[in-house]
């Protein structure tokens, strides 16, 4: 790809103070300060932007919880989610309905997984940003056979990542706190139910916490449409991050 050469006009304002001494015939001496503004137009070249790219591999460690298309977000500061904090609407949309567009829009650069990641499956997602090597990386994906469970990574500091560096961790499951964990028919978007995803009404604690796990009908929640197949434990996903350029 060719990058256009950009001309930036630089405006230099030079304030020149000229003390001038006038000698008169009389004993009076008059000092006059004269200001001259010199404006110079300087064509400046802007260096070509340098791509900084990462590959993020998300692996689904659960038995029967497909993961919604993963949101991979590079941001300058802040958090995508934090235990004890009120979740954003963008997080709620992802955690209840698997919709990641709101989270993707929060980044300086971001990328979405191509599709759902099935149990045992994995996907490598590339994300590129120009000239920034100290971004924060966050990843978020819904466990779709739940009311509002998600997993991911919040604000990993990339400033010490050199090209070729790799980092791997496993992540637990969080509860967005926006939809009560009823597990009832019609409330979960995944294939176990085919029910509702995002709903603007918040019906749970209102803050993000670690998820208590699904109960399921097999473990004593009479109205649950989930079975023992849908149970999960921590960790639920593995995330590998590699800087490739």
């Amino acid at each position, binding site marked *: 790809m060719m990058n256009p050469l950009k001309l930036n006009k630089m405006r230099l304002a030079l304030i020149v103070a000229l003390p001038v001494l006038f000698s008169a015939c009389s004993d009076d001496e008059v000092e006059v300060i004269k200001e001259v503004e010199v404006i110079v137009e300087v064509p400046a070249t802007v260096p070509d932007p340098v791509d900084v790219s990462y590959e993020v591999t998300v692996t689904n460690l659960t038995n029967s919880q497909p993961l919604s298309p993963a949101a991979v977000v590079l941001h300058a500061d802040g958090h995508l989610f934090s235990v004890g904090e009120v979740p954003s609407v963008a997080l709620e949309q992802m955690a209840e309905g698997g919709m990641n567009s709101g989270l993707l829009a929060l980044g300086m650069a971001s990328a979405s997984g191509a599709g759902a990641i099935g149990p045992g499956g994995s996907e490598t997602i590339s994300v590129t940003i120009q000239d920034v090597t100290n971004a924060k990386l966050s990843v978020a994906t819904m466990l779709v056979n739940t009311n509002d469970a998600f997993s991911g990574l919040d604000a990993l500091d990339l400033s010490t990542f050199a090209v070729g560096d790799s980092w791997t961790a496993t992540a*637990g*499951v969080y509860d967005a706190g926006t939809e009560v964990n009823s597990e009832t028919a019609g409330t979960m978007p995944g294939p176990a139910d085919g029910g509702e995803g995002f709903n603007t009404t918040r019906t749970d604690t209102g803050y993000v*916490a670690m*998820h*208590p796990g699904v109960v399921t009908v097999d473990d004593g929640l009479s109205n649950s449409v989930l079975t023992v197949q849908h149970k999960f434990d921590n960790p639920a996903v593995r995330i590998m991050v590699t800087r490739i350029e």
Partner: protein
Amino acid sequence: MNKLTKICAASALAFASSQSFAADVTIKIQNLTQGMYFTPIAAVAHTTDTSLFEVGEEASPEIQEMAEGGSLAGLTTIATAISADVLAEPTAGPLGPTESVSGTFTTADGNTVLSVVAMILPSNDGFIGLDNWTIPTEAGTYTVYLNAYDAGTEANDEIVGSGAPGMPGMPAPPFLTLGTGGSGVTAVSSNTNVHIHPGNIGDDDASGGASDVTNSIHRWLNPVAKVTVTVN
């Protein structure tokens, strides 16, 4: 004894110590669960040849009274006897879901490891535990995640009862919404040593069933607590 000061999410940076001398170590403990409570927490810096508890070993009577009823009396007495540095506020209220407490203390020479305990509610004898974690000597911020342990001293019947050591049932402080009429999940504790807690079972019957805890609220997956240690 120093004090752990409860902090709100909105003022997470504001914490206080009851002592005014220069501080070495700041400890922040956050409840990560969605529906469980912690009794007042004891954070203890002590020598490497002592410990509050060990997995795979029988719990001491002091750990038992903490794990079954939330009392820190025995543990703080022991801590004083072994010249440990203690950060605790035994009279504090419960630490609710996702809440944090924070405190600062100066550890004496030789008190190089940190242990943290508090009972988990509702449970029969569940507790959060950190056992002999080496306090780094290099200044910085360190994070440790804690699991839930079972003291092994009481059967997890999950019915409202007593918080006194050796007495069956769970303590039922007023801030907990518990069911009634449970028949009891089990009458035995198979592993009578300290072990990883198998978790609450609960049920969805508030006035009967086997358990007095609610299965969609009073469960957890590990980790249950986050400890942030700042060495100044």
